[in-house]
């Protein structure tokens, strides 16, 4: 089975939901792990999952800004025209570096904030398109994907936003690059 078949958005969603439940259980102190703060461990898993999600979603767009620009013009046409080329160039790299920061834990809280802002923007944009009956490819993971925007896409992005919000508001996470640099794990 190919990687992109294995890691389709439904699998990612299920994994994400599972991690949220793990985090929620830890938050309610339903279980403990020896030598580990279970809640922090769960938040760390969520942080890394969000990182892989975002970095993975950016890979297809990084080298093909032209295709991504076409998608923006067709599906997200309400982005002001002068900003569309800039958005097509900047957003994939912003996703990529944000994903790397979340995976590595370097400046992870700022990256979690960017993750939340991106997810909120995508959710609003897709909701607008769905409500207005715009029939478009989502372009969420691949620019040439046949996946259409539906209520499911909105729900999925809301779930991802929730993941990011949990990470953003977590007191601390493990495996943080900031800790290695001697900074306090925020």
């Amino acid at each position: 089975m190919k990687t992109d078949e294995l890691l389709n958005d439904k699998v990612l969603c299920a994994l994400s939901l599972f991690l949220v439940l793990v985090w929620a259980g830890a938050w309610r102190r339903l279980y403990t792990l020896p030598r580990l703060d279970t809640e922090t461990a769960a938040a760390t898993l969520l942080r890394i999952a969000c990182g892989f999600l975002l970095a993975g979603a950016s890979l297809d767009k990084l080298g093909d800004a032209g295709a991504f620009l076409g998608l923006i013009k067709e599906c997200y046409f309400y982005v002001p025209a002068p900003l569309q080329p800039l958005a097509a160039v900047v957003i994939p790299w912003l996703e990529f570096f944000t994903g790397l920061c979340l995976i590595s834990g370097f400046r992870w809280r700022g990256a979690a904030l960017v993750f939340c802002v991106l997810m909120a923007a995508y959710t609003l944009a897709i909701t607008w398109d769905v409500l207005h009956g715009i029939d478009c490819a989502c372009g969420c993971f691949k620019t040439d994907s046949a996946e259409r925007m539906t209520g499911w896409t909105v729900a999925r992005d809301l779930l991802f936003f929730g993941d990011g919000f949990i990470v953003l508001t977590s007191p601390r996470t493990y495996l943080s690059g900031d800790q290695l640099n001697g900074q306090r794990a925020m």
Partner: protein
Amino acid sequence: MRHRRPSDIHPAPSGSTHSLPGREPFRQAWGLFVFSSFFAVLFNAFYVDGIELKHKPKPIGHWQSSSQPPIPGFNPSSPSTSAEASTPTPLPGEPNPFPRLSLMGVKERFDKKSCVFLDARKPEEYEEGHIPGALNFYGNEPEKYAPLVMPQLPDKTKEIVAYCHGGGCDLSLQAAKALAEAGYTHVEIFGGGWPEWEKAGYPMTQGNQP
């Protein structure tokens, strides 16, 4: 025996309960955004498939026929000697600039009577069946149909939905381009087209009248 929690060893910062972070994340996020933007623009400048960042409004009127008198309200620019020649297809990578509507979105507009439908298929196909109220504007002959249809659409801000055979059909795109070039500002395309409408069992009309 109670396990020692890491917080016992390394106490978490004060206020370790969940709360909205302070200003530091905003500073970090801004730094990340600025770095990514600079990197992206630099990468794009040197990348072989980089795109033009400066927005250029599309030149309009590339169907203008020099051999034909200008049609009021319609300004096509390139010569059209045959049906094929008058059917420009988007250049590779050129996006479809018109919003695409789903069947649900189209039906909603049909029920509300909030838009005008444009059937971009051949007149014979239009006569066999079309969406009630749709005007026929064969996409391969915009110079012929523009003077017939545009006088019926005096409001250039009115929402117009063009459709054809769905799938890879370009006729609705050609009709939409012709309208956009004539100054119509709210043109959309029903991607599924007539096959999807017919399959859904929605209302239809036959004959050469809308």
